[in-house]
């Protein structure tokens, strides 16, 4: 199971400095929650781990990231993204049926046999706790599902390509409390087999699901500690203020 080791990571978009000398390690099979106000660099950090920032034209970075034993930029980018999956802030189904959404990545990676596709799709939907709700609707457009179902569909789509790490970028920001609870359930159960990095605007969500929690502010890592300690005895005044809702 992979781990990330990040040293002195700085990222710039044009003149805007999104991350400033961030160093931290991500352990195997943990849920690392990242909290912080808007524009604190959380999402930029997350998108560094699967190199999605590179789609931005004016992106520049400094520092070193290792995935397992390898430098992040030594790994083939498509292979890296297969190993490091991502679930986005809004549910983003592709314009296909429910089945084809989950099967898409698997197909693109060369699986053609109907039987093993069926199996992989069912397994992924079960892992995302969506199978029971959609098993009779696999041929329908993914856009006909509810928001919470769509987001779990996106999780299933990510799981189907069998990643080792899953990056969640505020996955519940558009969901109601019940859908949020279902997505959180799915995350907790995925922990045994995946390493999870969860960026969230919801401090309580970090407290509920995170093993460790990192607090970002203005592109800097302020504090990183076990979730319990962060929420009971934070080491930095700014962390304390943010958790208590005094700013942000």
């Amino acid at each position: 199971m992979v781990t990330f080791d990040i040293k002195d990571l700085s990222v710039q978009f044009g003149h805007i400095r999104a991350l400033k000398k961030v160093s931290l390690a991500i352990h195997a099979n943990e849920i690392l929650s990242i909290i912080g106000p808007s524009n604190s660099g959380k999402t930029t950090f997350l998108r560094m781990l699967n190199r999605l920032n590179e789609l931005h034209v004016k992106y520049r970075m400094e520092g070193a990231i290792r995935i397992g034993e390898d430098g992040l930029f030594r790994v083939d980018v498509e292979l890296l993204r297969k190993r490091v999956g991502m679930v986005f802030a809004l549910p983003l189904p592709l314009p296909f049926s429910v089945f084809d959404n989950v099967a898409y990545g698997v197909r693109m990676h060369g699986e053609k046999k109907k039987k093993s596709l069926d199996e992989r799709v069912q397994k992924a939907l079960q892992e995302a706790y969506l199978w029971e709700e959609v098993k009779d609707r696999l041929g329908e457009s993914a856009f006909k599902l509810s928001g919470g179902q769509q987001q779990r569909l996106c999780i299933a789509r990510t799981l189907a390509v069998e990643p080792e790490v899953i990056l969640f970028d505020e996955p519940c920001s558009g969901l109601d409390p019940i859908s949020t609870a279902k997505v959180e359930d799915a995350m907790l159960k995925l922990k045994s087999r995946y390493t999870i990095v969860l960026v969230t605007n919801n401090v309580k969500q970090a407290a509920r699901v995170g093993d460790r929690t990192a607090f970002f502010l203005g592109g800097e890592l302020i504090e990183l500690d076990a979730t319990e300690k962060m929420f009971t005895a934070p080491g930095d005044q700014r962390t304390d203020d943010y958790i208590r809702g005094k700013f942000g």
Partner: protein
Amino acid sequence: MRNPYRTQAVAFFFLLLATLLIVVPVGLVVVIIVQKGLPAVNWTFLSDIPRQGMRAGGIFPAIIGTFYLVSGAILFALPIGLLAAVYLTEYAKDNLLTRIIKLAIVNLAGVPSVVYGLFGLALFVVFFKFGASILSGSLTLGIMILPIIITTSREALESVPASFREVSLSLGVSKWQTIRHIVLPNAIPGILTGTILGLGRAAGETAPILFTVAAFYLPQLPGSVFDQVMALPYHLYVISTQVPNVDEKIRYGTAFVLLALVLFMNLIAIVIRSKFRKKKKW
């Protein structure tokens, strides 16, 4: 005192007036051409060669000629234009050179068609020694509609949400697979709109084919792409201005057939487009 409801009524009136000013002339053109042209159209008119110095008989060679020329132009311009559009939207870096190229392409769409005619004469007819032929004419028309196809294809490709691309890439799917399986299928309706526009333009223009392919009078059908053909727009020009005493019915009949041919070819593209639009799920 100002009355917002009256202001709205006045604005509404002018908006309606502007729309009518567009619709009425277009409608009149169609009505007049149908009214005056339809009586001339019968099986002989469609299937016979022109006779008695083009004052009788049919226009079959011109119909076939225009069909070949338009098909050739699309066959040449659609693949090249589409590939260029994919390169410009998906691969080219956003720098000064790319921006100049994009601007040049947009401006090329505004170049008068007679300039393309001269260009085709110099390049295809003379330099490549294709002579006045279907090949030269098709390529000239193809180059004329390339900017239309590239510009509309680019817009279609750019209108595919960036999030689809991000999702696809985030699954470890390669860029080319993303373009092939996500971007292109969702851009097809827009690309076909560009094709329809290009097709209409290629069928209707006289100047580009004047020096490169069109024959004044050539009753036999072409045997190869290196033969000359008659074409509807040029034939219409000839019987309207160059040949005296042509019955008005025949002239309007030719115009009617040209309109109908363009409409028919557009219809094919529209049917394909609506099939793809039905599949669109966002």
